[in-house]
């Protein structure tokens, strides 16, 4: 490095100051804000939502534009779009978070085991991930979902299956590099068991990468879920943002119901953005060169 060394000694630990940097970062704030709002909506849906999206008979006339009674208009059945949106948040966000959680957990385990134990274990595991990585995700998901039958569980399963290999790859390469560092060796010399090394050393160091990727994955999962619903592979009787678009695709355009199409899409974008912002913020705090401020 050509620059002079920095002067002041930091009085707080590395990690705490990094966490503080994330919280102070404008992007993370916006991201967290969005997520909190939507989570609130999702959790309090039955209370907050003006109508039930499954109401029969439907509260309004079909295809009515936004009005005081129906803030975002009605769909082809006359159901309130705003209510559908709020209830849809539950499904979409839940699916996103579950998928991200499952894929991250499974992928991390595979990645750490492969990276740490190396050789045959690594080879074998990586063949498995490669098979899934190489195949294009949507066709794979379609064919799996077509066989499994349309349902929420199918969607979750299929999304998880196509996402975990990427996590495994990333975690594995980080593990490989961490394994070669001196502090791992010193632990091993001191007699630490593999389990201890993995949990006490590798996981904390991998935490940032895992966190940044996991957050990003929620976005991909939500968009993926919308995509699968759109094709008709999700449970179309359940209201989610994806299924709203499934119905809207067929009926909204020729009935001029633009609100029905815009609303779920905007929500997907907003929530997706929220998670992306958080992820970007985490990444740039830990890699200062990528900063934009």
């Amino acid at each position, binding site marked *: 490095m050509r620059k002079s060394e920095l002067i002041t000694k930091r009085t707080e630990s590395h990690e705490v100051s990094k966490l503080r940097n994330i919280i102070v970062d404008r992007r993370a704030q916006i991201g967290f804000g969005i997520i909190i709002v939507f989570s609130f909506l999702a959790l309090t849906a039955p209370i907050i939502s003006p109508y039930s999206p499954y109401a029969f008979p439907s509260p309004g006339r079909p295809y009515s534009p936004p009005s005081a009674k129906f803030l975002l208009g009605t769909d082809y059945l006359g159901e309130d779009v705003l209510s559908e949106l709020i209830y849809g948040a539950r499904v979409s966000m839940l699916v996103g978070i579950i998928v991200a959680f499952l894929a991250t957990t499974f992928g991390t385990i595979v990645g750490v085991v492969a990276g740490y134990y190396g050789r045959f274990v690594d080879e074998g595991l990586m063949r498995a991930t490669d098979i899934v990585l190489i*195949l294009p995700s*949507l*066709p794979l998901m379609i064919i799996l979902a*077509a066989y499994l039958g349309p349902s929420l569980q199918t969607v979750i399963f299929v999304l998880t299956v196509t996402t975990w290999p990427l996590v495994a790859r990333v975690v594995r390469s980080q593990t490989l590099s961490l394994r070669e560092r001196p502090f791992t060796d010193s632990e091993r010399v001191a007699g630490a068991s593999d389990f201890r090394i993995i949990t006490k050393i590798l996981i904390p160091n991998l935490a940032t990468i895992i966190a940044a990727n996991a957050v990003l994955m929620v976005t991909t999962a939500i968009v993926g879920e919308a995509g699968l619903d759109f*094709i008709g592979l999700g449970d179309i009787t359940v209201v989610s943002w994806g299924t709203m678009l499934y119905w809207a695709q067929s009926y909204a355009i020729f009935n001029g119901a633009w609100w029905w199409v815009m609303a779920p899409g905007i929500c997907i974008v907003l929530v997706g953005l929220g998670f992306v912002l958080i992820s*970007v913020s985490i990444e740039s705090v830990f890699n200062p*060169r990528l900063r934009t401020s």
Partner: protein
Amino acid sequence: MPGSPITYFANPHIITSPAALEALKQRFGLDKPVWVQFTLYLENLFSWPPNFGLSYLFYPTPVFTVIMECLPWTLFLVGVSTIITAIIGILIGVVTGSRPGSKLDTSVISVSMILWTMPFFWLGIILLWIFGLTFHLFPIAGAASRGFSASNPLGISDIPDVLWHAFLPMMTLVIAAYAGYSLIMRNTMVNELSQDYILMARAKGLSERAVLLGHAARNAMLPMITLIGLNVGYVVSGALLVEIVFAYPGLGYLTYRAVLAHDFPLLQGLFFIVSVAVVTANYLADLTYAFFDPRIKY
């Protein structure tokens, strides 16, 4: 298998006699033991032309024929849009990467992130609505204005019409996917510009343009080639969805119809072909990378 094709046909409204049912089973080879079916399946797969069986939806056309009629449209869509997306993404990446932190950079990143999180098909619907329906600038469905088929193929004179039809679907793909390249290119540029050889290039008295394009961008481009290969799967997935929105007669629209009709042979065939195509594209990307990076020997 759940959702067995026979249960579809075994709908009492269609087939009533058990004898007919039995005949159907034999016809599709579903009465033989599973492992025999599987061997037969593999045999068929690796012959030429690959025999994927007959499509239920387009009975009795072979699956392979059906797929081959639709494949060129998807290739066209994906191929051309990938090229345009890569070029635009790289250019934007070079410009923003050379001034990280500037107003231009932050606004481009913000816009890119918003566009990137938009679902492909939603963007397609919006574009379709605005430009196709409201302003009647572009057609809203199909690949060409007149009907066409294998016996009545499109000719050179149809090219402008074809391009007109392809414009909106391609725009959708480009807008939704460019950020994948521009964001990464930006970060790679920032990394390259902090390398020692850039300092050297500046010390040599080279113009800023020569430093940026001739040195930094050239090095930053290499990972992009790999990225194009990696993204092919993603673009293909997006293209499938976009085709549905625009009723574009490619593999995506075909898949949609196959799913609705539970046409399993067709779905299997589609999955196979698409996977082969993507794997091939990846392989080509690897070869291209080896060609451009003097440090790699193949």
